[in-house]
């Protein structure tokens, strides 16, 4: 194990010569940090942009950073800034953040069987950090390399992204107008490219491929629907497509 750690992160942990509990936790935490790093490439520019817009709107550095630290939800934070700019009331912004984050219900439901053995405090801690990026990493991890210390992997991924998101928000606020030009640098492609890559790595069978294609078509057709209805419709159709194909395949197997 010490060799694996040294190879991956250049950190020598001498006392990890045998596979102890603590080492396994530490290793999983490190692996989680390592897995989320490519996805922070897309998140950092957005966090900086969020900070820069907040600064332009006259929101203090403390409030900007506090929102990132406590909410940790990019789309909801951008929505809040947009609504604050046009004089939206706090109650309306909070209500809208429910709609914007409805997809997290789906993520949370998917993770439920994997997190069931954990204590309520662990589940609360991990669900706090359940962002799109973390879900992308964790869904792949649980399917391909789940272990008894996977929650440490989850914590590593969450805490890393949370740290970078919060720090980048503060940096964006401090650097202010210099960051506004970030839009012209072409980094807006980072999110679709990142999630597109994750989806490609998840497609292992025909049912998943067809479910993904169905979702893409439905998301495109429903792109102009308000309040993320297009997203909800597309994911529902994709899930239904995958489900029925799997059922059909199961029945065909039984017949054979």
């Amino acid at each position, binding site marked *: 194990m010490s060799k694996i750690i040294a190879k991956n992160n250049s950190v020598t942990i001498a006392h990890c010569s045998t596979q102890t509990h603590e080492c396994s936790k530490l290793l999983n935490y490190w692996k989680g940090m390592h897995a989320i790093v490519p996805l922070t490439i897309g998140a950092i520019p957005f966090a900086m942009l969020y900070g820069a817009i907040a600064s332009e709107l006259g929101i203090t550095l403390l409030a900007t950073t506090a929102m990132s630290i406590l909410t940790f939800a990019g789309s909801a934070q951008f929505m809040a800034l947009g609504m604050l700019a046009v004089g939206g009331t706090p109650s309306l912004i909070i209500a809208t953040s429910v709609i914007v984050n409805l997809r997290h219900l789906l993520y949370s439901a998917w993770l439920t069987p994997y997190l*069931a053995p954990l204590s309520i405090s662990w589940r609360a801690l991990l669900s706090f950090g359940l962002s799109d990026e973390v879900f992308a990493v964790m869904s792949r991890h649980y399917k391909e390399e789940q272990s008894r210390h996977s929650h440490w992997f989850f914590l590593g991924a969450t805490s890393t992204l949370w740290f970078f998101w919060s720090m980048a928000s503060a940096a964006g606020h401090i650097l202010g107008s210099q960051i506004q030009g970030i839009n012209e640098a072409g980094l807006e492609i980072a999110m679709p490219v990142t999630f597109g890559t994750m989806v490609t790595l998840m497609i292992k069978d025909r049912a998943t491929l067809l479910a*993904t294609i169905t979702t893409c078509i439905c998301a495109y057709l429903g792109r102009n629907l308000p309040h993320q209805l297009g997203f909800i419709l597309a994911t529902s159709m994709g899930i239904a497509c995958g489900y029925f194909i799997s059922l059909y395949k199961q029945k065909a197997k039984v017949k054979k």
Partner: protein
Amino acid sequence: MIYLILGMAITVFAIRFLPISLAGHYRMPEGIALALSFAPPVALSAIVVTTISGMLKENSSSQHVLAIFLSLTISLGTARFSQKTLLPICAGILVYMILK
């Protein structure tokens, strides 16, 4: 502002925590578990299409369309063959930045 931040934090946390908090109290029916197994690729691909649609709404010039198309093709193709994350993401971003 403090009420807004706390309100948003509690709301977002509640959405994320609600199904997970019920874990262990009930057994998920097999059908729902099977359907939910498609949630990760489906949810992420919906985000991709929604974001790309938004980008095309802002700028639908042929050069922009080509930059997006090539960027995605290269990153997805690299991901398919390398089975890694960092290389396809960097390649896709780089291609878009050059072509844009």
